[in-house]
């Protein structure tokens, strides 16, 4: 009972996340075209493409180095707002993983919390501003609750995944506040936030991957 993700597992996750993101190009682009400047998928996809190419190297690194490398790469290849936000997230999360060989239940929580904190402090946004935070924040909150309740790893991972997906879905009725004009706030109404959706993709793939690793 429990899961242990190595740096090799994380590299594998990156490959799977790239596939998922890459397959949803038109959809994500249309979301950003509706509420932003339309480049979110192109940005993210090029970042993950690069990571996918590097995956062979990544799996040979320590988790600490791997996360730092992912962070630097996302920062510079994704670019724009989401690049620096993901970059900050990974560089912050790396600190948790110094000297760690694997990511188990507890570390995964710390990693996701650290990412959330980094994103919130870098971008100065809160839950409810219709951003990627609106997928990650409920996931982290759910994680915390599950740990307090002491549910099984499998149930925890399933519930956290669902929270991330629901969180993205809930951006539909939010007004955009960050990175958008006030007069355009209503513009987002009825549309999902692209950054929240791609965040939920990554969490979905990661949590599914962890689910596959849970020893029963």
């Amino acid at each position, binding site marked *: 009972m429990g899961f242990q993700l190595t740096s090799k597992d994380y590299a594998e996750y990156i490959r799977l996340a790239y596939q998922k993101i890459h397959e949803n190009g038109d959809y994500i682009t249309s979301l950003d075209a509706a509420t932003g400047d339309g480049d979110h998928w192109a940005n993210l996809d090029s970042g993950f493409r690069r990571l996918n190419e590097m995956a062979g190297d990544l799996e040979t690194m320590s988790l600490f180095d791997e996360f730092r490398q992912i962070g630097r790469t996302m920062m510079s*290849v994704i670019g*724009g707002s989401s690049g*620096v*936000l993901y970059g900050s997230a990974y560089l912050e999360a790396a600190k948790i993983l110094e000297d760690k060989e694997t990511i188990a239940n507890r570390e995964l929580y710390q990693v996701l919390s650290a990412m959330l904190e980094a994103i919130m402090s870098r971008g100065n946004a809160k839950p409810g501003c219709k951003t990627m935070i609106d997928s990650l924040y409920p996931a982290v909150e759910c994680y915390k609750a599950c740990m307090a309740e002491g549910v099984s790893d499998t149930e925890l991972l399933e519930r956290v995944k669902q929270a991330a997906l629901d969180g993205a879905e809930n951006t539909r009725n939010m007004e955009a506040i960050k990175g958008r*004009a006030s007069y355009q706030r209503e513009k987002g109404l009825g549309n999902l936030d692209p950054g929240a959706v791609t965040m939920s993709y990554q969490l979905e793939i990661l949590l599914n991957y962890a689910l596959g690793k849970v020893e029963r």
Partner: protein
Amino acid sequence: MGYKLKKIINKAENVVEEMLHGMALANPALIHSEGLGVISRKEKASKVGVVSGGGSGHEPAHAGYVGKGMLDAAVAGNVFSSPDPERILEGIHQANGGKGILLVLKNYSGDFMNFTMAADLSGMDGIDVEHVIVKDDVAVEDSTYSTGRRGIAGTVLVHKIAGARAEEGGSLLEVKAAAEKAIQNLRSMGMSMSACTIPMIGKPGFVLGEDEMEIGMGIHGEPGINRTKIKSAKEIAKILLDKILDDYEASGIEMKNSEVALLVNGLGATPLMELYILNGEVHAYLAEKGIRIYKSLVGNYMTALEMAGCSLSLLKLDEELKKLLDAPSEVPGFSVSYGAVKTCVK
């Protein structure tokens, strides 16, 4: 797509790097950090380094202001998109003379996040980094890419002030204070008459009717205050200046009997002829208001690719700002009607 766009380019994805390459070739005093979007001074100085940057498409901003007396490095992102922290770190590195670095940002969320991230990272390397944020555009309170006011052409005057203060040996905090003073006393506003096309996107970002202009539009085509029928130069001067002057008043800055630097900025496709006509109207209107123009700069200082339109910036001057504005500078972009006539006169 590619070069079927009506632009003199090769591949749309390479425009920024190729531009910076061509720019360094034309300016032997500058160097281009290949692949990293940075233009910096070849001759390094032991002084505070002043670094600016942002999305490309605003040429001559920002690389055109690199040189003695202004910026030490400029960092270019893709067209209308913030440079990433890796590039900004390269800019900081190139500008580092051991006395600290001042980052001059325009207030866009992407720029803010990327520049402050780079500042955090270089803080780890033991480099003192401070930043100032220019929010000179009085048109709108929040915008597509900004929380709070946007930074536009007036930023060039902040480059000049900060660069001059650094050149004369000011400490990091002194350079920052000079830049802050300029920012406090700076107001701008623009208008646009046509759209522009980001090479990678290949079609115009918006459409304006045949006889329409948009007051307060941003330098990335972000919506302004309102669309109206095209107006005369005289009316345009009045609309933009009234809003700027009201804003000074709202901030409690008295303008009557003050002296200002005026920047009449073209957005790219507006002929110098029109900017000079507008300059004449601005002079007349400010004279009416009892405001003296100490210096006027007329030309393309911060563009929006091939957008037609203009912006006006005023910088209220005191003796310190005047002296810094008048200090010599040797940069490619800061010259039309100014560098040459005034700054270069020793």
